[in-house]
């Protein structure tokens, strides 16, 4: 085959250019990941040391701390909404409000809330709306004194971002937290999340995120996670490893160099003032969390105000991950489209000195390695097949190299798992650790190709302008143990 292809014009150059491009890309990624490990390690150590001087129990007794509103949008969550709201209400923080936004649900969510919490309709004539949203129908507050912290906004459907914006409009606290109504938030999460704001020095904190964990098959009682179990199925199990790696290594490393461009939509805290200044979430993109974070950063750069986006290594929020590969693919397809839209929306950042490191380093990284990785990988597969057909590949060598690359991936996952179990006591049983490691080692053969497929599907839809919204994310629901 090689002989027949030899005559092809430039085949030699095509082969070697491709090889060097892939090796260069892989080596750059490897270097970045290695640096990430060192940065993340330093960041986790520092965060832990700092937390000694500002413990959650210090914050809980303090006065003058900022007030916080949790904004949770809900759409057709009737089956679980009461449990979920009770869970969110139980978060421990002295100056805490919960705003639940019913985003035009078609089920009986609102009626259930009215019945359970004895809600009374408030006059909504004079609501200020600094961020335009779909119209708000009514505001509800509880007649029961034990639920004074709860507000329910009933509005016409406008999507998740729109619902959150309505919550931000109504909130009157300094800080706002955005979460999904079905997330289980750790009881002391806000006490920990406000730390960076309390310790803000010369740089304003414009966003703070916390680790997110997967709680499929875990036991929930009274809205809190009483027994963390590993998911029984491989797809969510792989996501446990993926989240540990992403949050503990990736986000912490970027946090250390103030290069965070994303705070997960499942759990993030922002100053309300800044969110309003930038006009809230963008309802036109499905990657609204990434887009908001980038827009906030841009805003601060344009105002020339020193700022920071920070991450806490602790897992503060538990969520249910897609339990089968169909839902997983839909989720990653959506994420890929969100990334595409955001990258395209903020393309003016690329190598723009006006935006400092964000323009010169962080945005190019996202473009090249977050947005570009699936494309490079996809091209890699095509090249592998084509070069194989042409007989240009030295198979024994290629297999050895692939095995080496596989082992490097295993090392990264192992380090992440090691750092996680060393720092936190969520997974302590040997059986759990072994399962996690095995899932990590199997990932490239089963889970990763699914991710690649989902991502490429998202890009394909964007290229050919195939309309697709959030899609349905069917959840199995947590195991609820009745007290």
């Amino acid at each position, binding site marked *: 085959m090689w002989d027949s292809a030899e005559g092809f014009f430039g085949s030699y150059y095509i082969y070697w250019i491709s090889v060097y491009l892939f090796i260069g890309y892989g080596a750059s990624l490897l270097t970045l990941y290695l640096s990430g490990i060192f940065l993340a390690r330093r960041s986790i150590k520092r965060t832990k040391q700092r937390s000694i001087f500002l413990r959650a*129990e210090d914050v809980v*007794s303090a006065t003058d701390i900022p007030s916080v509103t949790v904004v949770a949008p809900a759409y057709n969550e009737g089956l679980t909404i009461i449990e979920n709201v009770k869970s969110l*209400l139980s978060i*421990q923080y*002295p100056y805490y409000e919960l705003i639940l936004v019913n985003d035009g649900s078609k089920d009986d969510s609102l009626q259930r809330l009215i019945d359970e919490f004895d809600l009374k309709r408030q006059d909504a004539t004079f609501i200020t709306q600094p961020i335009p949203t779909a119209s708000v129908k009514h505001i509800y507050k509880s007649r029961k*004194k*034990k639920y*004074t912290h709860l507000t329910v906004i009933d509005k016409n459907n406008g999507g998740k971002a729109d619902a959150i914006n309505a919550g931000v409009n109504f909130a009157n606290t300094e800080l706002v937290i955005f979460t999904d109504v079905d997330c289980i938030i750790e009881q002391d999460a806000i006490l920990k999340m406000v730390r960076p704001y309390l310790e803000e020095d010369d740089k304003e904190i414009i966003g703070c995120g916390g680790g997110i964990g997967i709680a499929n098959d875990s036991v929930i*009682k009274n809205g*809190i996670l009483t027994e963390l179990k590993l998911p029984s199925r491989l797809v969510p199990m792989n996501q446990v490893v993926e989240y540990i790696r992403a949050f503990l290594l990736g986000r912490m490393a970027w946090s250390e160099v103030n290069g965070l461009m994303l705070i997960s939509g499942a759990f993030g805290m922002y100053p309300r003032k800044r969110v309003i200044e930038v006009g809230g979430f963008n309802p036109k993109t499905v990657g609204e969390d990434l887009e908001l974070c980038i827009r906030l950063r841009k805003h601060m750069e344009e105002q020339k105000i020193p700022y920071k986006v920070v991450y806490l290594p602790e897992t503060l929020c538990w969520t249910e991950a897609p339990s089968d590969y169909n839902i997983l693919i839909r989720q990653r397809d959506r994420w890929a489209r969100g990334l595409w839209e955001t990258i395209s929306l903020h393309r003016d950042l690329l190598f723009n000195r006006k935006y400092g490191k964000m323009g010169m380093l962080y945005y190019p990284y996202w473009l090249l390695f977050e947005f570009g990785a699936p494309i490079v990988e996809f091209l890699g597969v095509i090249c592998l097949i084509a070069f194989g057909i042409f007989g240009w590949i030295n198979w024994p060598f290629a297999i050895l190299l692939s095995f080496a690359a596989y082992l490097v991936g295993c090392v990264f996952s192992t380090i992440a798992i090691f750092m996680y179990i060393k720092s936190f006591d969520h997974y302590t049983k040997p059986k759990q650790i072994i399962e996690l490691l095995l899932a990590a080692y199997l990932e490239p053969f089963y889970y990763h190709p699914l991710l690649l497929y989902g991502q490429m599907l998202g890009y394909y839809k964007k290229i050919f302008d195939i309309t697709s919204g959030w899609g349905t994310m069917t959840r199995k629901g947590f195991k609820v143990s009745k007290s």
Partner: protein
Amino acid sequence: MRKVLVIQEDIIILKILERLVELNDYECKAIRSLDALNIEDQQTNFDFIITDILFEGIAPLQFVAQVQEVLLHKNLLIVTNMGQDKIKKEIFALRGVTGFYAVPIDLDEIEAIIQAY
């Protein structure tokens, strides 16, 4: 014998309060969460319940309301780390709370109350 129920997650405060109560000739049940209550406790009419308001899985106001609903008692004293004026007002708005003490506390005050009873 007069009976007191102490509910505190912090083991040190729990032990101190338990000791304080016992030395003042009360029978004391000291627990770290409501889960530790047995059926007999739920039928006892406690002379005092001395409790925190910060417990896993339940909002402070809801917890107080639950204690008031579930447990028979004559006096309810709150001893808590989350002792801001705002919380104090909200707790008293629930009615039926005898006293609210924010940490740091002067234990002599609590002793005086149970001695005077």
